């Protein structure tokens, strides 16, 4: 079982590298999917592993996006350092807000995160002189990557850049969730009271993963800014947080790859269906969500895993509850 998954993992990343040959005309869309996948990975760490129900995760995505955008618009167009600064700023915001989010029940968390998300959205909206307000931030100009590779109109540089960043961050997250610390997070999701009883500092652990995930979200936002050279107010919108939840659930939460699969399905479906009719898209999105919760919530990856298990008739420890 384990070796199957390892091969599947290798194949997954090889297919993405082969994207240059497989979908050369669709590289900008593919970059967007990867960025959404990274954002969903960040949300997976919060929701799938730590069990924190949030509807305001776009706040950190937006902070990263605006940080990178403002840096580039004011002359600091070097992409990699901009990316790092954006990640750090988002992590800082995540760290400052984490005490508010970590405490309380699902419902309070839901409302606090929603409130924080709306708060930042309004802030960006009102600080129009700095952020450009509803018109978006103009004048984002990126310097060539590593001083040599220009961001071209076909998105070749952008796709490679995004793919490398996402891969590196993915490896780190994979290492993290398989560490003892990652196990403690799953323990907290399953039963916080018992974890506390065996001496785990629950609040501290949750705050740490929340900060870490905020940094990932910030990097994802910065990547979007750098590859599209524009920041719109919608990076902070409630809709983005809600769509993020949908992506992760469609793909499968608590499985690391779920976010990427979900992002791909979601964005391609969006691309196809909303070109027919935007109303159509929203309707089917809603129906899909209802169907997913009625049938079982472990998403596409979970279903695939169940199929594999059925075929082999071997018990497997399924991590998603």
């Amino acid at each position, binding site marked *: 079982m384990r070796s199957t998954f390892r091969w599947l993992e290798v194949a997954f990343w090889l297919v993405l590298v082969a994207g240059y040959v497989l979908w050369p005309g669709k590289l900008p869309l593919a970059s967007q999917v990867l960025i959404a996948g990274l954002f969903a990975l960040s949300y997976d760490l919060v929701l799938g592993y730590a069990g924190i129900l949030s509807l305001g995760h776009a706040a950190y995505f937006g902070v990263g996006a605006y940080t990178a955008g403002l840096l580039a618009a004011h002359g600091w167009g070097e992409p990699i350092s901009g990316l790092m600064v954006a990640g750090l700023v988002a992590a800082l915001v995540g760290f400052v807000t984490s005490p508010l989010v970590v405490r309380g029940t699902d419902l309070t968390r839901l409302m*606090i995160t929603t*409130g924080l998300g709306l708060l930042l959205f309004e802030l960006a909206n009102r600080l129009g002189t700095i952020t450009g307000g509803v018109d978006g931030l103009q004048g984002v100009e990126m310097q060539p990557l590593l001083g040599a590779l220009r961001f071209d109109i076909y998105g070749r540089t952008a796709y490679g850049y995004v793919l490398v960043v996402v891969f590196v961050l993915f490896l780190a997250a994979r290492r993290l969730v398989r560490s003892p610390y990652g196990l403690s997070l799953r323990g907290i999701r399953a039963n916080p009271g018992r974890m506390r009883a065996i001496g785990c500092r629950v609040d501290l652990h949750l705050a740490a993963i929340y900060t870490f995930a905020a940094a990932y979200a910030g990097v994802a936002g910065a990547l979007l800014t750098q590859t599209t050279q524009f920041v719109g107010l919608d990076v902070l919108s409630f809709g983005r947080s809600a769509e993020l939840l949908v992506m992760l659930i469609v793909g499968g939460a608590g499985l690391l790859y779920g976010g990427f699969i979900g992002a791909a399905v979601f964005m391609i479906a969006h691309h196809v269906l909303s070109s027919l009719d935007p109303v159509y898209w*929203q*309707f089917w999105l809603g129906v899909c969500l209802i169907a997913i919760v*009625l049938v079982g919530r472990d998403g596409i990856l979970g279903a695939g895993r169940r199929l594999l298990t059925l075929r082999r008739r071997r018990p497997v420890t399924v991590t998603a509850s």
Partner: protein
Amino acid sequence: MASLLGVLFDGLAYGMLLFLMSVGLSVTLGLMNFVNLAHGAFAMLGGYVCVVLMQRWGVPFLGALLLAFFASAVAGVVLERLLYRHFYRRSHLDQVLLTIGLVFVAIAIATWLFGSQQQPLRLPPILSGQWTLVGVDLNVYRCFLLAVGAVLAFALTVVLERTRFGAAVRASVDDARVAEALGIRVSLVFQLTFAVGCGLAGLGGALGIEVLGLDPTFPLKYIVYFLLVVAVGGTGSLKGPLLAALLLGVADVAGKYYLPQVGAFILYAIMVLLLIARPQGLVARA
């Protein structure tokens, strides 16, 4: 001075609307611990029923309001039986997903049927116009809103605190298992309160067309306000949500009037601060 009173008056009328629309949600959350993000969809349904009845069939305003109440209540019961009841024991995440899905479907259906534009509403002549009282202009329709809200809040309080059914509701909110053991049919109590809550949301939606407008994004636009009322007011009582809704209404109108450049920012900041200071709501139950 006059403007201050005017803002207060508008804010209270607005708050009454918010109260009507969110009181059902506070009961749902308090009674069944069910996160119903689709509550606004019932309000929107009431609004559209009212508009259609008045414009296509010439039903008078008051009649249309009543029918809006019943339409939303019936829709609530049907959805409760079909979908919601399977989710009471499920996690909050499942409930959020289900009800967000419902919101998307509701928005799509409303757009498909009525288009994305704002729906116009012609008020009966008795309810339009202004009264001038000691130098303050009072909008007649807002007086009507305040009166309806006050009467309904009073009626709800009487039902909840003086009747056997109200006692059953309160017992179920306090401890559903013990209430069940005492012979109260909690699921039936819940269905009835859910229906009334949805009906009130529908009534609020119909009453609110004049003030809040009505378009397909209504459920998303106002869900934050409903959650705010419940979060600030606490769940399972009437006093809390009423107080919270009035406060919110006045704060929102005052904010928009005196500090338009800050807008909704103050409101969200207040919400976050209140939630941090009093996670159980303003009027916490003992």
